[in-house]
Every structure is written in structure tokens, then in C-alpha cells.
């Protein structure tokens, strides 16, 4: 192997041991390496000490309000799909100091905020979460104002993506046009192959940074042949086709899909649809859906002062449109009912987002369905409105 051949766009075979070499090189170059691990009954993102921490053989069965791990010795390293965590937890952390002020003799002075920390490498990122990354990039970096903390972390992010071989019933990335095949926004992308119980990975190099890391990490790599690249590419594409054709099997979770045709106008034309009141009888307004959503970006700022009151930090923390504080004005919430708050969540995610950022705010990851304690299903709510559009106050004057 000629190391100079490892360039963006090339494909290489990684053996199980090569993953450890890659993680080692990422660590050596100062990265905090985070990847999927089994903890607390779920696959979550945690700091990895090595490939042995990865959830080999674990499968997740997901349905509305339900997430169960099952061990299957024949399953691969990345045959689970998405857990409750996403890149959002790291790039837009749940709590962060965004400004700090100190007072001397009655005068306030702004202090620099903390160093953004080591660069982050995330292993096992799926196509839906890469779409979420692009969406959050537009939120925090795509407008007139750039969030400096997000940008600092984003610019140094190293992504090792994974092509899904399997979909959960809650997955509907195929409907949102962003998966399951990984196509962009990665440094390295792995497609797992299991032969005689032995795992190896076809690795696509997606960036110069990815190429440099792989060159430095691995001594001897076999190049994927053209046929092997075709085979590797076909795996997630076949899964995507299967997802379009999935049918409900009695006794198994219902496979999800979402009809996005004209969805913006459908929702904005049905702002007073009776379904909002109906879903409100089930919705607990618990905020789980917005917390696990990889694109939800609402935030509040809390003042945190020391005892003297002379040293004040401004802490930004995740906010949710299901919380009364979200739309509080003059001591009252504008959205004072669960129906109005659910409507805000759904119409923002699937309709308003298109006006605001030029794309849907949904990637079809299915987390909001799985982690809803009562199993409310975003795809079903849209389908219900589509089935009986009531029409809204189209241009009517208030």
C-alpha cells in the first residue's frame, strides 16, 4: 500500500484492529473520542477507551414509547441504530456558559468564556444525524450571527460515520431523503461486513482530514476493489429500498414513513385542526421529544451568580416548546395549552423550519417516537391531519 493513495474519495478495508489504531491516532492528536456504548439499558454516546467499548452484538428494538436492547451474537458492531443521544449533545451541549461578567466598584466587565475544550471525534454517526448536523450548522452558523462556541466545536469535529445495515421500525430517514446511505459531511464512513463471524469495515474517506488521520493511523491497508466499493455502497441503498417497501407484520412494530408532499402548507392550513386537541389528551408536555430531537435548538439563558453577586455567568440551557417558560410574556404563556404547544413543536419542525432554514427540521431518526412516554408518533399525527384536512384560517382576518 502506498500511503499517498489514501485520499478523499478512496476506499480501504479496516480490520477490527484498525479501529483501535484509528482511535489511538485520534487520541494522540488530542481528540476526545466519543462513540456508542451500552449503558443504562440503551446505546448512548460516551467516551471510548477502545473498540472493545463498542456495542458489538447489541440490537435495539424500537417502537412508540419503547426501546429494548437485545444481544445477538451474530449481530455486528454497529447494527443498533440511534439511541437517545446525537451530535447535538456535544456540539450544542445541554448546559453551557455563554458569557461571564464581573463587577468592580459598580462597573461590569465581560470576561472571556472557557476554552472550548479538546477537539471532538464522534464514532458511529448515522446518515440521519449527519443531516441533523447540517441543519444545526444552518441554525448556529448560517445566519447573520454565528454562535462562537458551536462554531469552535464544529470546525474541529471529526466524524466517523456508519452506513446502517438495519432500520428500526421507528426509522423513516428514507421519507426525509437523508438516509440511510451516508453521502456527505463525514471524514471517514464505515460500512460493516461480517464474514464467518469476522467483522471488517469498508472505509470511505470523506475529507482531507479523514485521509490524513487514516494515513497516520494505519500501516497496512488493503484498498477496496471497484466491485467491493459497489457492494459496500449497495448495502445502505438496498436498506433504503427495503424501508420504502416495509409492510406491517402482525405482532411486530409498525414501520414508519412520512408523506412530506406539500407538508408545509398542509400544516399551516390546519392550525385549528381538531387533531391538536386530540393529541393533547395523550401528550404529557414532558419535553422528551425535544430533548432527544437532534435538531431542536431552543434555549433559555439563566443567570448564575456567586454569593457576592459580583461574578455572574450566563448559562444557556436547552429549552422546549412544551415548557410554559418557552413563550412566557408578562407573566403568562402565550401557548397556555398542551394543544398549542404540541402544534408549535410539529408545525415548527415540519413547516416553519422550511421558511426559516430551507429544509425540514426532521431527519426521520424516530427518536421522538421512541422516547415519548406515551408513544405519540409524529408520522401518525401528520397522517391524521392529511386524512381529514379541516382547513385553517387561510387569509381570513382575525
Amino acid at each position, binding site marked *: 500500500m502506498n500511503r499517498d493513495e489514501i485520499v478523499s474519495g478512496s476506499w480501504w478495508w479496516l480490520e477490527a484492529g484498525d479501529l483501535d489504531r484509528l482511535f489511538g491516532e485520534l487520541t494522540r492528536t488530542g481528540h476526545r473520542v466519543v462513540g456508542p456504548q451500552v449503558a443504562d439499558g440503551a446505546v448512548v454516546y460516551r467516551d471510548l477507551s477502545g473498540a472493545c467499548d463498542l456495542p458489538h452484538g447489541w440490537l435495539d428494538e424500537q417502537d412508540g414509547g419503547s426501546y429494548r436492547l437485545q444481544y445477538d451474537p451474530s449481530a455486528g458492531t454497529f447494527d443498533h441504530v440511534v439511541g437517545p443521544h446525537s451530535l447535538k449533545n456535544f456540539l450544542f451541549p445541554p448546559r453551557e456558559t455563554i458569557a461571564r461578567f464581573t463587577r468592580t466598584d459598580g462597573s*461590569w466587565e465581560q470576561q472571556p468564556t472557557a476554552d472550548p475544550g479538546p477537539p471532538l471525534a464522534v464514532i458511529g454517526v448515522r446518515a440521519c444525524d449527519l443531516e441533523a448536523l447540517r441543519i444545526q450548522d444552518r441554525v448556529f452558523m448560517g445566519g447573520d*450571527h454565528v454562535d462562537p462556541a458551536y462554531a469552535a466545536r464544529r470546525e474541529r469535529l471529526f466524524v466517523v460515520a456508519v452506513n446502517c445495515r438495519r432500520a428500526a421500525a421507528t426509522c423513516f430517514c428514507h421519507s426525509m431523503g437523508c438516509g440511510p446511505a451516508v453521502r456527505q459531511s463525514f471524514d471517514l464512513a464505515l460500512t460493516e461486513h461480517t464474514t464467518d463471524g469476522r467483522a471488517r469495515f469498508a472505509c470511505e474517506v470523506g475529507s482531507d482530514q479523514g485521509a490524513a488521520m487514516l494515513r497516520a493511523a494505519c500501516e497496512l491497508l488493503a484498498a477496496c476493489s471497484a466491485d467491493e466499493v459497489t457492494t459496500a455502497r449497495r448495502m445502505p441503498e438496498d436498506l433504503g429500498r427495503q424501508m420504502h417497501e416495509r409492510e406491517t407484520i402482525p405482532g411486530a412494530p409498525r414501520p414508519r414513513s412520512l408523506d412530506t408532499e406539500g407538508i408545509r402548507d398542509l400544516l*399551516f392550513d390546519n392550525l385549528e385542526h381538531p387533531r391538536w386537541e386530540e393529541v393533547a389528551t395523550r401528550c404529557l408536555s414532558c419535553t422528551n421529544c425535544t430533548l432527544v430531537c437532534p435538531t431542536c435548538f431552543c434555549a433559555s439563558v439563566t443567570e448564575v*451568580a456567586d454569593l457576592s453577586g459580583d461574578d*455572574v455567568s450566563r448559562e444557556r440551557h436547552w429549552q422546549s416548546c412544551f415548557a410554559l417558560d418557552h413563550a412566557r*410574556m408578562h407573566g403568562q404563556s402565550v*401557548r397556555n395549552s398542551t394543544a398549542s404547544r404540541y402544534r*408549535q413543536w410539529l408545525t415548527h419542525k415540519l413547516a416553519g423550519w422550511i*421558511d426559516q432554514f430551507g429544509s425540514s427540521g426532521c431527519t426521520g431518526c424516530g427518536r421522538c417516537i421512541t422516547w415519548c412516554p406515551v408513544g405519540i408518533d409524529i408520522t401518525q399525527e401528520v397522517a391524521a391531519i392529511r386524512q381529514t384536512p379541516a382547513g385553517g384560517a387561510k387569509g381570513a382576518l*382575525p
Partner: protein
Amino acid sequence: MISPAATATPIDTDPWRAYPARILRIRPEVPGVRTYELAFKDVAVGVAYQFAAGQFNMLYLPGIGEAAISISSDTVATAALGHTVRAVGNVTDALARLVVGDELLVRGPYGRPWPVAELAGRHVVVVGGGLGLASQRAAIYEFARHRDRYRSVTILHGAKTPADLFYTTEYAAWQAAGIDVRPTVDAPDPNWSGAVGLVTDLLAGLAIEPERSSMLCCGPDPMMNAVARAALGVGIGLADVHVSLERNMACAVRHCGLCQFGPAFVCQDGPVFPYDRIARFLAVPHL
């Protein structure tokens, strides 16, 4: 900070950067409402700072919080930035305890301003309900200064009682500049000789050509809806009715998501909107 043309040209790359300012004067307006005139401590910041009528600042009291307050002073007098504030919450209550010489922090200005220049050649009707007039005062100063550019300028200002009318000491100057100032109250006192009733009642009596008229309206949402209906009633198109909305806000830079109203971010797409663009959303309760 953004220029009067509302094109963002941040003078600092950190949207959370706030600049110390000192309270120069505190002017009582109506019960519970004061105007705070602020000057940046750093002269260079004060010189660089420009705003357009209808924009707002985030006023920050460390340890208490931030509030979005529209700038109520003249755009050409940035050495003393006016903020007319009613004490109704955490931050505004704390602001009410400050005295001249105290310091707070300011970031801004933010938001889409009133379309002051675009209204040249038209009848302008400013409709302000109560404190709503604060967001319009900078525009009124511009109309007064360039009165000849407009066909007519009328201010319809509604308040509960005569004691609740805003900026009454300035009416004479505005009238002298050729502005028709028409206050109206819900509950007159024995000395009141002006109009009684809603601002919408005054609209029909104006000598304006509706197709050449534009409105700038700021007040509670139900009032703005009533004004838009009344405007339509006298033949003013809804695209020519501009309203200024108020929503909860933590960042003012389109990042926090709290100020969403339908597909709009009030902080960036507003606070000033042409009414026709948001009518369908204002029609929906609790949106």
C-alpha cells in the same frame, strides 16, 4: 450591531457580547413607566452605534437577566439612547430600582425597523396603544424632521385614562412640525376635552386617501387586529399596515427559538411585519 439599513454588520463576532452603558437620565412617563436614557461607557462603541426607528436593544442586568426594549429616542441622537420601560417583570422591576449613574449592559440594535423611508409621498398614520407608542417615537421624530416628504402624518394614540397617555409634553413640538396628534382615552377625567373611545373610532374621520396611506401600528395583539380590520374598512390595504409584535426572547439573534411566531422569528423577521404577511397567524389563538 446592525446598521439602519438592517443589514447585519456585527461590530463584534460574539453575539453575547454586551457593552456597559450608564444611565444619564430617568424620566417618569406614566405611572409605572419610565424612560431611561443610556450612554455607552466606551466612546468608540457609542460612535459606532447606529439604529433605525423600530429596532430594539437587549438591556442586561447581570444576575437578573435581559429584556428586549425598543429604542424610543431619536435615531440622530445616539449619545443618549432612550428606552421606555414598564416595570412588569423580573428585569424591568430591577431596572426600576436603578438610579442615574448606575450601569447596565446593552447589546443591539436588533430587528426589522419601521419602513420610514419607503413611506415618502404617502399619508402616514401612526397608531399606538399605550406603551406601544415607545417603539414608534423614533419614527415620529423622523416624520417631524422630514414632514415635507409625507402627504400627511397623523398620530392616533390610545390610553386608558388621560394620565396614561405617553409623551404628552412633546405633542406641541410634533404639532408645530405639522403632525396631527389625536389622543383618545377609554375613561376621561373631568379636565379631558379630547376624544373618548378606541383608536379605531378615529380612523374613519381622517382626511386621507386610503390607497396612498400607510399605517404603523403597535399595541396589544387584539388592538392590532382591530386596527387592521378598521384599516381595511376605510380602504387601506393590509400590506400597508405595519405592525410591531412582542414575544419572549433570550438571544435576539435567531438562535434561541423562543420568539417564534408561525414561520417567523420576531427578533429577526420582525418585530415590524407587514400585516398581510402574518394575518393568518394572528388569527389563530395561542400560536
